[in-house]
């Protein structure tokens, strides 16, 4: 039991970096998808803290991802040329952190007023905020307006993507499996009972929102430095819904399930490239089919709460 979680984190990061070192052996296309998978794991697991564990239905995750992506990209675009190549990884780490922090602040700004709403109302408000964030980037000349940012250094590799995915999983899992973190689940189960037991629901909701937004921001930074271009269109609400689908498919509040769902839903569209125009139809049908057969989530076997 002792230190098991930290050991897992260390091993996962080492493995990610190890694979990254030999990544030149792999097909570049597959490697790209693998990096996408890591980014989507970060997005889905962090959204799961908000939607799954804390039970606050947020549809604005792409908005926070956009904040992190734009902030990190702008920072490396401005500072990158001034620094020697050896300093680039440090700049990248700083940029990711910066993007995450700004996204967390955005999460705080959005969360404090909107978390007094519940269920579908909260979903609509977060959807609105997500769109507002996107439109701000779309109209801001500093961030390239509708064209977005181009020429971003390709600094994201397998190690960064999967290493940070491991960090996200560690943070969310450790947080929820603790005396402190049971408060998140209590808020989801029954807010009134939770507050009668000395749990401050507002505080827990805002905490979940800020931590979730922070990791969405990190994922955005990784995404920006993976694709090398950022356009506001990539952060519309369809992206938010994609992440929500991963969470629902994996089973709300089941970290392991959500990870598998993120992997499947990232690879699936790529596998379906062969059937070109029918791709999205098949993708949608598969999701409908899965929801009809396993509405509780693919990997929810009804043992929630056991750690």
């Amino acid at each position: 039991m002792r230190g098991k979680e930290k050991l897992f984190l260390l091993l996962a990061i080492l493995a990610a970096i190890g694979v990254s070192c030999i990544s030149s052996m792999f097909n570049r296309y597959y490697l790209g998808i693998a990096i996408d998978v890591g980014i989507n794991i970060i997005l889905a697991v962090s959204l799961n803290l908000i939607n799954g564990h804390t039970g606050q239905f947020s549809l604005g995750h792409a908005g926070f991802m956009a904040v992190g992506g734009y902030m990190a990209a702008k920072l490396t675009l401005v500072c990158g040329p001034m620094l020697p190549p050896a300093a680039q990884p440090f700049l990248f780490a700083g940029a990711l952190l910066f993007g995450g922090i700004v996204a967390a602040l955005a999460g705080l700004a959005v969360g404090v007023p909107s978390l007094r709403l519940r269920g579908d109302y909260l979903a609509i408000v977060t959807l609105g905020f997500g769109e507002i964030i996107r439109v701000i980037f779309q109209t801001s000349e500093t961030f390239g307006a509708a064209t977005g940012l181009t020429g971003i250094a390709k600094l994201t590799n397998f190690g960064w993507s999967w290493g940070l995915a491991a960090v996200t999983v560690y943070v969310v899992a450790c947080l929820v499996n603790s005396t402190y973190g049971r408060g998140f689940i209590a808020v989801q189960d029954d807010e009134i009972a939770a507050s009668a037991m000395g749990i401050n629901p507002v505080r827990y909701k805002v905490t979940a929102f800020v931590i979730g937004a922070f990791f969405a921001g990190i994922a955005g930074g990784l995404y920006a430095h993976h694709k090398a271009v950022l356009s506001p269109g990539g952060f519309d609400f369809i992206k938010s819904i994609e992440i929500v689908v991963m969470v629902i498919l994996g089973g709300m509040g089941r970290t392991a399930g959500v990870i598998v769902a993120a992997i499947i839903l990232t690879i699936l569209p790529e596998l379906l490239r062969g059937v070109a125009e029918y791709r999205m139809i098949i993708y949608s049908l598969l999701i409908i089919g899965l929801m009809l057969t396993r509405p509780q989530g693919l990997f929810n076997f009804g043992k929630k709460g056991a750690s």
Partner: protein
Amino acid sequence: MSAPLLDLEKVTIKFGGLTAVCDLDMHVGERELVGLIGPNGAGKTTAFNLITGVYQPTSGNIQFCQKPTAGVKPYKLSLRGISRTFQNIRLFASMTVLDNVRTAMQGNRAQRVRDALLRGRTFREVEARVEHEAMELLKIFSLDQFHGTPGKSLPYGDQRRLEIVRALATKPKLLLLDEPAAGMNPTEKQQLMELIRFVKDRFQIAVLLVEHDMKVVMGICERINVLDYGRKIAEGTPEEIRADPKVIAAYLGQEAVDA
């Protein structure tokens, strides 16, 4: 007598044109077992919600431990020592029996996000202590063998008991029980009465019991307050209440008094 633990003074709450509770004076002393009864719709649960901070009174004062509770959020009142159960059981549905109890202990602990993430020595100590204390509590109510089962799958009577255990896990000074006998058969009611008395003695706390089952209230309460249409119509020992014509009228109708 020393100052009461809980003191309500001329408490009134209005919802629009409806006065749900009017000029209610009530007090609960340390380690006292007080009943609050009344016919359906008399304002008992509303009084509960006023005490626990769910509603704010339109006028009047509520003091707990000599401190006013006006504007204090329910979770803070819980930390100050007011704990409760609910008329319609509100367990944490997705949690096991043990986790239901452990969750209620979190307010008393100084664990923060940082501790949960760093998983240092203090974290493990707190975790171990919380688990130990929760199991001890469950053992007292012989629910410990169910610690791994989901709270929601316990039989009805056990769910009610688990709710009481969860409320006790917050280490309250005052425990509010909202119709704990609802839906119970006479044998279960008898066991419940013993349980409430046991809780009060074992944990040395005050209990305020809302109930409309007269038998339960009369059987265990030291003092009873009777509400009708939001007003207190009587207060006294079970014997006094039983003989009070106003109480009989409220429960059985005026004809019963005249007869």
